[in-house]
């Protein structure tokens, strides 16, 4: 079914800033304003603001909320206190990834799930199909919340100065609710760039107010173009590229977010099997000469046999090196292995490296 493309509550502001717009996850989103390189560097060296209102939010409440979230989520929510956040996945029984998400523990019986825009409907259907035996309420808050991300080494200073809120006491992967302009907003010390930063959830009216506040203060507006180059350099996965219904978290090298000591969660049996017998893995590759390895390009071994595909690739803006993440057969995933990326009918030699192309600068 063809669905109408949606707009975030900041759409008019992107148009006014002359952003280059493009569909992403069902929304007409800003890809760039001043240019991807400039925006990328603003986040690495200074601070930038992103509209991430396309992201979905789901509230799980009720006396069995903890039990239920623990059952559908790979990470261990029973281990965390209120105000903490966990990253992890929802899996299918076969271990394939339904989505990757953040889980905020709002209260003893209240969890706030932040999910990918493209997966909102699928995730809701999945969550509802799994909750039959649990006393929980599931509420889709995606149309209520706008979301902005303030990212970069100066984000704490700028956020405090412009809003008057104290956020310096927020640790990495924690959040607080703040009473602000007549509503409760949520600020978390999280992001998707490999830099220190914050994500802020509030009503559309708040989101529009906050966007103007930062833009008028001269903070660089940043589009999804640099959001991708930034997360890529930090080795963070993007659903549909490094995780999917075909790519489970073990293949993606994200086993640390799958807690096998939990008594039960959907997909556990399959993951046990994959831990014993993994056939493919996401690796990093660095080309030995300059070209651009892009998603989907084929990867061959010395004998010319197809052994994988690029999942995301760029000439890294921070290092200038031609690098990519790729899903390859397990026999070719050892560090130092030479493989060949086919780019416009020419094979470029590449070496398997760690899939992190930039050292993350989180404030811990």
């Amino acid at each position, binding site marked *: 079914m063809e669905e109408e493309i949606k707009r975030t509550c900041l759409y008019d502001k992107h148009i006014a800033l002359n952003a280059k717009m493009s569909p992403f996850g069902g929304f007409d989103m800003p890809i*760039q304003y001043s240019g*991807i*390189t400039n925006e990328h560097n603003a986040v690495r060296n200074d601070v930038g603001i992103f509209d991430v209102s396309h992201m979905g939010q789901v509230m799980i409440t009720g006396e069995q909320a903890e039990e239920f979230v623990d059952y559908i989520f790979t990470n261990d929510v029973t281990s965390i206190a209120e105000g903490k956040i966990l990253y992890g996945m929802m899996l299918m029984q076969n271990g394939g990834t339904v989505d990757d998400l953040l889980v905020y523990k709002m209260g003893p019986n209240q969890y706030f799930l932040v999910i990918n825009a493209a997966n909102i409907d699928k995730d809701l259907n999945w969550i509802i199909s799994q909750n039959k035996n649990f006393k929980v309420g599931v509420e889709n808050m995606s149309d209520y919340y706008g979301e902005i991300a303030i990212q970069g080494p100066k984000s704490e200073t700028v956020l405090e100065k412009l809003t008057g809120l104290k956020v310096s006491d927020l640790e990495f992967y924690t959040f607080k609710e703040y009473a602000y302009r007549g509503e409760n907003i949520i600020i978390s010390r999280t992001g998707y760039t490999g830099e220190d930063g914050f994500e802020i959830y509030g009503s559309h009216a708040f989101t529009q107010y906050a966007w103007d506040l930062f833009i008028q203060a001269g903070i660089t507006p940043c589009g999804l173009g640099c959001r991708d180059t930034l997360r890529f350099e930090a080795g963070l996965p993007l659903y549909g590229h490094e995780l999917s219904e075909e790519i489970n978290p073990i293949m993606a090298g994200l086993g640390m977010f799958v807690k096998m000591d939990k008594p039960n969660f959907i997909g556990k049996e399959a993951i046990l099997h994959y831990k014993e017998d993994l056939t493919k893995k996401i690796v990093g590759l660095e080309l030995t000469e*300059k070209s*651009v390895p892009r998603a989907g390009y084929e990867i061959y071994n010395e004998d010319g046999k197809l052994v994988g595909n690029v999942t995301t690739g*760029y*000439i890294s803006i921070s290092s200038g090196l031609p690098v990519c993440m790729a899903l390859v057969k397990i026999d070719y995933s050892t560090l130092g292995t030479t493989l060949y990326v086919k780019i*416009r009918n020419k094979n470029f030699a590449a070496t398997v490296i760690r899939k992190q192309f930039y050292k993350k600068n989180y404030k811990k």
Partner: protein
Amino acid sequence: MAKVIEGLFYSESHEWVKIEDGIATVGISDFAQKELGDVVYVDMPEIGATVTKGSEFGAVESVKAASDLYSPVSGTVLQVNQDLTDSPELLNQDPYTNWIIRLENVDNADLAGLMDAATYQNKFN
């Protein structure tokens, strides 16, 4: 507003060409570089390679996308712009000064079917 230069001929795929003394100089238009965004790599042919009017001879890659280059005329590659190897962003700074390839053995008749500056400009009005 995309800049268009008088005296050049333009293709539908937004390359420009100028033929002087039997040598064709080929580049991409200001519209093309604006559409691409930050150029990070230019894939250029070998010197001595034969290129054919309308056929792919290389690619310009921005951060987000690869865009094939199509030759507006046929000829033999005489020179490639080595400056673009180290500084591909020159194509963003001035796509008319920073040509991509120079061809010899070209035929002025190949200019037929290309747009002059006024016609090309009209595409954006």
